[in-house]
């Protein structure tokens, strides 16, 4: 062990793990304790045949979405990292943009297109696609088109962390395809698998898209317990099968992928071995194809639908404060989440193999807790007399909500990043007499910058669109943009719904595009 128990490492990591436990674990522990107090609530875990069928449907939806999103996203991530595409940062923003559109709205666009009276049926003269639109495969495709950017961004970051000279050396003796199969892919598999797991959890937690496409999923059972029965204990207990599903999948992934030894790079050098130059045209064609299907088609359909909108000006005028609040809170939330996740991720990244695998599974399980359960748990923990209560009723609750929901996913991403920082760097610093704190700030954290930016961006996007927890803990008299929009579209004509969805996506796309261009414009990139 290179750092002694008395080094600064011990209190720093203990504080990180304690913060993580309080922020993420406490709301869930509160809900489980409440359900435990109710006693009989656990009886609902004996699922009936219908519920078991729903759970199976959910598992199929999650697994298929994770696979399809990875099949779309990982090759694109490879193209962004290794193939010398022109206007790479523009491609990155355009290909990541579908993640900014609320999944429900993307599904709505596909319904406008492929419903029994949709644009396709109108063009062909009869209904040829609606049976496919309203189906489990339809839901898989829609969710994959929303979530593939997670796989893409993760793959790109992982590839950029790999020493390109390994591939370059292999390319002198083997074809690019063989190098990709035997060297590159195995090296990024842990990161790709981690992103597939996150997609799996997001897909099995979805309620809006399956509901719109008439696919029956287990999430509706939890939703029914909350929205029809107002039974917190039942809802919390019914979340356990979903959480267990995520647990099993995470465990399988850990067993299959393991904790591979990674060879990474630091310093200059081309991130794109020149041998992949020949793939430029194919990569650009594939990226164009995905962009058209995932972004252009839904946006054009929504814009066409929105073109008939009459009274949107007032809605947009009144949304200024919500837009400012949302952007500021999402930015602050992403910063706080990343700041804590760096240390939690480091603790996991440097943990022993077995403890690390257990930590991965725990992080996935916490990420799988439904947003409403988190929200009610946060109310239970924070809405009480005394110092805790002074935070309740303020914007601080929204930040606590983002921390509770997104700290696990950011910690997973950063833990993957930490594993790409060789422990030998720390050992060398220790031998040279540097303290742990100095080593972290001078050696480890600078190498995590790229992963931290990716984690920050993903959390910013997720926090900006967060609704389930926010609606429960937002202070009275104020709302975030998603809350405002969702509470305004209830009865609005589809034109207004489409226009408001485009507004929500545009608001978050602009700062992210500026950020991406800013990063791309920096020297040395």
């Amino acid at each position: 062990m290179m750092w002694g128990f008395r080094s600064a490492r011990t209190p720093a990591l203990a504080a990180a793990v304690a913060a993580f436990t309080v922020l993420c674990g406490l709301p869930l522990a509160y809900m489980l304790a409440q359900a435990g107090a109710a006693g009989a609530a656990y009886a609902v875990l004996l699922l009936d045949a219908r519920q078991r069928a729903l759970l199976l449907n959910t598992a199929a939806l999650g697994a298929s979405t994770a696979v399809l999103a990875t099949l779309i996203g990982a090759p694109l991530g490879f193209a962004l990292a290794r193939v010398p595409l022109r206007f790479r940062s523009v491609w990155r923003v355009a290909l990541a943009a579908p993640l900014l559109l609320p999944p429900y709205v993307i599904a709505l666009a596909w319904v406008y297109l492929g419903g029994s009276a949709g644009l396709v049926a109108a063009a062909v003269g009869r209904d040829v696609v609606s049976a496919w639109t309203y189906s489990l495969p339809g839901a898989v495709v829609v969710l994959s088109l929303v979530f593939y950017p997670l796989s893409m961004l993760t793959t790109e970051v992982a590839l950029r962390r790999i020493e390109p000279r390994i591939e370059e050396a292999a390319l002198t003796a083997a074809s690019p395809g063989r190098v990709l199969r035997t060297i590159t892919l195995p090296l990024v598999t842990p990161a790709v698998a981690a992103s597939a797991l996150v997609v799996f959890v997001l897909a099995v937690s979805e309620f809006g898209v399956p509901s719109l496409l008439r696919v029956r999923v287990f999430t509706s059972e939890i939703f029914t317990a909350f929205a029809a029965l107002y039974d917190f204990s039942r809802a919390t207990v019914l979340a356990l099968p979903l959480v267990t599903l995520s647990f099993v999948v995470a465990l399988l992934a850990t067993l299959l992928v393991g904790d591979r030894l990674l060879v990474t790079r630091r310093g200059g050098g081309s991130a794109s071995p020149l041998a992949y130059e020949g793939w430029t045209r194919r990569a650009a064609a594939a990226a164009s194809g995905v962009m058209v299907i995932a972004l252009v088609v839904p946006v054009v359909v929504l814009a066409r639908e929105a073109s008939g909108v009459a009274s949107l000006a007032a809605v947009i005028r009144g949304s200024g404060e919500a837009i400012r609040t949302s952007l500021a809170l999402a930015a602050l939330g992403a910063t706080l989440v990343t700041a804590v996740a760096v240390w939690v991720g480091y603790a996991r990244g440097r943990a022993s193999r077995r403890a690390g695998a257990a930590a991965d599974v725990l992080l996935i399980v916490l990420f799988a807790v439904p947003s409403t359960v988190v929200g009610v748990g946060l109310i239970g923990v924070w809405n009480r007399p005394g110092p805790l209560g002074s935070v309740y009723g303020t914007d601080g609750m929204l930040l606590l909500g983002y921390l509770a929901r997104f700290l696990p996913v950011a910690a997973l991403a950063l833990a993957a990043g930490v594993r790409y920082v060789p422990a030998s760097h720390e050992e060398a610093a220790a031998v040279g007499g540097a303290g742990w704190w100095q080593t972290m700030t001078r050696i480890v954290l600078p190498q995590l910058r790229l992963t931290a930016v990716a984690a920050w961006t993903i959390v910013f996007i997720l926090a900006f669109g967060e609704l389930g927890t926010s609606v429960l803990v937002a202070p009275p008299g104020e709302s975030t943009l998603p809350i405002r929009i969702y509470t305004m579209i209830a009865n609005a004509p589809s034109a207004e719904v489409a226009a408001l969805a485009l507004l929500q996506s545009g608001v978050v796309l602009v700062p992210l595009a500026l950020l991406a261009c800013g990063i791309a414009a920096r020297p040395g990139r």
Partner: protein
Amino acid sequence: MMRIDRASLLAAAAVMMLAAACGSPAENPERTVTIYVSTDRVFSEPVLREYEKRSGVRVNAVYDTEETKSTGLANRLIAEMNRPQGDVFWSNEPVRTLVLKSRGVLAAYRSTSANGIPDALVDPDGYWTGFSARIRVIAYNTRLVEPEEAPRSVFDLADPRWKGNAALADPRFGSTSFHVAALYAQVGDAKMDDFFRRLKANDVRVVDSNSTVRDLVVRGEVRVGLTDTDDVNVAVENGDPVAMVLPDREGLGVPVMPNMVSLVANAPHPDEGRALIDYLLSPDAERMLAESEAVQIPLHAGVPGPRNLPSIDSFRPMTLDYTKAAARVEEVTLRAAGLLGL
């Protein structure tokens, strides 16, 4: 020399930002009232802003809507019971109010503004008062269905004539759950079970919300659908090919669904809460809601009704014992969902 590294600076900045974000809500001395509103924000916000103007009391509203499926307000009120934050609950349908009453979340308050509202729509115990009502209606596509062919009763939706061409929202939630509970209370279990079995056999489309029902009808994906007046009216005002039938005018009576307003038990601002309830139950507030696209039907006599709807005294509303209907709402809506294969 002590060095301050970048990470420490970032951490300090984050803590300061968090402290600034938290602030202290108690610093503001102005009078405030907090209301939780499940009536669509686009309709309720102007009414509350008008109250702010008239009273000088700042209204902090928490909006939500059954349609978003975010399950927010009722769960929030229940979760906050130990230390309530809201003063008033304004619900756009009766079920949630009745659930909250049974959970002990609400306090009794009899407003003088309720004078003139029919007794059936005022809780004898004072825990809620109904105002500005919506109606459950059958929407039909005017390009596909002639007015004289449109269904006249909700039970017509099980007619083979509409096989594969009728839609309704999930019976477990929102105004549909109210309607289902009311029908079970009025008609009886055997007949209602049979109705839902026949609906299932008729390939009825069960969708996520009433606005989706409306959209399916507008797009012609189905010809008819069971939904709410405000959903249909927005489409009518938009020039979409849709019209509505007030069902069961003969027989059961038209299913009328009032808004309900209640005082929250142990509210932090009870006086301001009562004053806001008085305003919401006034003819002025009902007039605003009638004139809006919500087309809510005033319950005070003499207040002009919405232009696209008949006045409440021109048809016979379904007579309903709300407490009796509410007592079985969870059981019967889950039962209906089961019969529909959800």
